[in-house]
């Protein structure tokens, strides 16, 4: 019989307050196969881990159960401790008596009984655990960065500058993302384009970076160090090799009234276009949805004027296959659809803008050349009302989170407005001012004290047009009275939301996402840039609302994770993989069909003289991810899953 050590963690009071740990220890001590049972305040602490290691050596333990928090917290910690004590780490299992016991039950007695049963059944499981050896897989030293905004560019440059190869995929025609749209950035008020464009150029010219713009991720297979990624390069209808970026075609394009995405609808563009003047690459694409030729079969004006014959209407989407070792997801965010707030009149009143539109107005490269004027009549607004939390922090509208950047950019907007229009009035309706960050609070203070930003604490309840003015009614909750402001322009600090297709991308990548569609990190505090899928990392606002400094910091963190991965020739992978018993396999190939990873191959069994006896399934350890779907399909119980074998689970259930 085994010699199992059971270590019951109090987790301070977290467990001990509900579960009678001493009783649990006593119950385990009397269990067949348990050599020792100990309790301690924090087994995850250094002395706690040391005591486990000591016990492993002293009692010659053949298995360890740590009854503590969720294995998702500290399984790795305790397995490493066991390994350091010379016990194969896979002979250690975690009994979850915190998240799934002490924290969720009120009755101590029942919680204790449950803790005993949970621990006992895992003791039975661990008795059947086998020593497993990590699987070594080679690493392809090439990273895929999805998204060419500031986060993606930062990650790509950091990796490339350290010598790693990068494929940078951007779905728009140019790099830049949202940062390229901004005017000046808080809290330093440096010009966004001035700091962004050089980085875009650097990325495009970097010998280690392969840029795929106007491209999207089609398929991702494989696993850490060994992904096979298919990228769809959308047809640009402009030959990138021939085009010189002279812009002649855009001049001649007759389809001129297309609402420009880059300027958030504040200006128009042509059907053949570059998103903005500083685009990288600075070569146009044809928007086949609006192109007259694609609609009517006639026109080809661009083709006629192109000096290098770069226009090709026959062009088709191309699929690019990539071998990738690690993936950085930096797909950014979108601004929330303001239709959600009918009461704010967005769309109805042309002078109700989103924060991003205001950025374009304030931008020197924007449609007004940086002059803040009303879209309706081109007049300079005398009074602007800013409404914060337009969407954020409003569970009734489905967004409970704070978009994090709005407080800052609204303060910035008020400032920019005053800098450009010294007599302008700004009134800001807010819930709280959240200005935590280096120089942030000072920044908002400056807006109030130096630039006359008029903060009104309260929500806006109604907005209507009256005598050419936008009437804004809200409440000043500090003064406890209603406020009505006649404004010339209203700017909504709309919520930051995930990209509309983020969930699909999550499925393609096999990474988790939350209810909104922001991608899930492996651990909010301790593994904030990793995902639960090894080899895939998160940078920027695709994980949660972020400002530029945070996005850049996270991008660099991703780069360091990727580079750490690339610093090794081989990777060790969890040996939780399927294994086939060839003696009992009948070769029906149900497992082959069921496997999501094509990890099961057909293998010939031959006699000594090489004659085929029969064919059996054989698991490719490199490809298998350990889901166990094949095991359940296998009628003869031939395939089994290491770490979760039939014997282990049988014992676990029968030990309940």
């Amino acid at each position, binding site marked *: 019989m085994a010699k199992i050590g059971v270590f019951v963690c109090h987790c301070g009071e977290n467990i001990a307050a509900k579960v009678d740990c001493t009783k649990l220890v006593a119950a385990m001590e009397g269990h067949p196969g348990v050599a020792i049972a100990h309790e301690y305040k924090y087994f995850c602490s250094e002395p706690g881990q040391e005591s486990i290691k000591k016990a492993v050596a002293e009692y010659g333990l053949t298995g360890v159960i740590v009854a503590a928090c*969720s*294995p*998702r917290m500290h399984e790795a910690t305790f397995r490493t401790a066991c390994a350091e004590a010379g016990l194969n780490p896979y002979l250690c299992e975690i009994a*979850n008596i*915190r*998240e*799934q*016991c002490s*924290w*969720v*039950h*009120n*009755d101590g007695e*029942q*919680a204790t*009984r*449950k803790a005993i*049963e*949970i621990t006992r*059944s895992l003791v039975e499981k661990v008795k059947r655990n086998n020593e497993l050896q990590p699987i070594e897989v080679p690493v392809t030293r090439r990273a895929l960065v999805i998204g060419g905004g500031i986060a993606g560019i930062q990650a790509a440059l950091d990796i490339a500058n350290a010598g790693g190869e990068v494929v940078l995929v951007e779905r728009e025609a140019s790099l830049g993302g949202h940062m390229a749209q901004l005017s000046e950035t808080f809290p330093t008020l440096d010009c966004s384009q001035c700091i962004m464009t050089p980085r875009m150029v650097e990325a495009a010219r970097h010998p280690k970076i392969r840029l795929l713009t106007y491209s999207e991720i089609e398929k991702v297979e494989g696993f850490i160090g060994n992904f096979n990624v298919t990228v769809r390069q959308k047809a640009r209808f402009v030959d990138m090799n021939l085009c010189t970026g002279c812009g002649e075609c855009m001049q001649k394009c007759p389809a001129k009234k297309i609402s420009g995405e880059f300027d958030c609808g504040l200006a128009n563009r042509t059907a053949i276009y570059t998103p903005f003047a500083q685009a990288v690459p600075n070569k146009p694409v044809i928007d086949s949805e609006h192109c007259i030729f694609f609609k009517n079969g006639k026109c080809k004006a661009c083709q006629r004027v192109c000096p290098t014959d770069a226009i090709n209407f026959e062009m088709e989407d191309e699929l690019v296959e990539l071998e990738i070792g690690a993936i950085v997801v930096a797909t950014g965010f979108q601004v929330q659809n303001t239709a959600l707030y009918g009461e704010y009149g967005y769309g109805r009143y042309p002078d109700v803008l989103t924060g991003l539109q205001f950025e374009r107005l304030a931008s020197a490269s924007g449609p007004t050349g940086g002059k803040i004027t009303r879209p309706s009549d081109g007049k300079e607004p005398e009074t602007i009302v800013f409404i914060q939390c337009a969407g954020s922090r409003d569970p009734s509208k489905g967004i409970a989170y704070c978009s994090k950047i709005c407080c800052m950019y609204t303060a910035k907007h008020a400032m920019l407005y005053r800098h450009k229009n010294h007599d302008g009035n700004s009134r800001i309706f807010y819930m709280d001012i959240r200005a935590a960050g280096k120089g942030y609070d000072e920044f908002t203070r400056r807006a109030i004290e130096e630039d006359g930003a008029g903060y009104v604490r309260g929500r806006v309840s109604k907005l209507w047009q009256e005598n050419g003015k936008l009437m804004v009614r809200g409440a000043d909750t500090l003064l406890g009275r209603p406020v009505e402001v006649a404004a010339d322009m209203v700017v909504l600090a709309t919520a930051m939301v995930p990209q509309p297709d983020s969930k699909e991308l999550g*499925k393609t990548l*096999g990474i*988790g996402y*939350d*209810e909104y569609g922001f991608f*899930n990190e492996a651990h909010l505090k301790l593994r904030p840039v990793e995902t*639960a*899928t090894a080899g895939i990392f998160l940078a920027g606002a695709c994980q949660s609302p972020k400002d530029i400094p945070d996005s850049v910091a996270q991008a660099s963190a991703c780069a360091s994770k990727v580079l750490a991965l690339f610093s090794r020739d081989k990777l060790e992978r969890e040996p*939780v993989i399927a294994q086939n018993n060839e003696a009992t396999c009948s070769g029906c190939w149900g497992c082959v069909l*069921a496997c*999501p*990873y094509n990890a099961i191959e057909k293998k010939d069994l031959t006699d000594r003289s090489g004659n085929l006896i029969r064919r059996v399934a054989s698991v490719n350890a490199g490809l298998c*991810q*350990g*889901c*166990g*779907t094949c*095991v*359940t*399909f296998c009628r003869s119980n031939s395939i089994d*899953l290491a*770490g*979760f074998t039939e014997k282990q*689970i*049988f014992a*676990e*259930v*029968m030990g*309940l």
Partner: protein
Amino acid sequence: MSEPFEPKIVAFVCTYCTYAGADLAGTSRLKYPPNVRIVRLPCTGRISPMFILKAFQKGADGVLVSGCHPGDCHFDHGNYHARRRWTAFNALLQFTGVPEERVKFSWISAAEGIKFAELIDSITEEIRTAGPFEQYHKLIAETGSAASV
């Protein structure tokens, strides 16, 4: 007076979604009845019908099988396979008279701590109302006697 009936419920869950959801219920300090024992598997694809039968043999009054929502499987499509198996096995169980309330299937994501807690609440209550799975318990008891002279 005898003790009130406390059902024994065994839950087979995937580690990526429902197990994480159950953890979330814990970190959110939600409360639910202590009748459920969770067996963690890598994926719903790994959950064999045999597990359910063995849970009953161990005296379970109810069994819950739960994993990621369709499309959310960490292993891409383990849960689609699982769903087919459950469809067939569930039909079989019902046909052989295992009452519907004894075996439940659900999708609970890592974000659905509340759903987990509420589900455990409701199935515990349902089984508490239905009472012990006497018919199965009788079969277990019979294994200790010989069907003969």
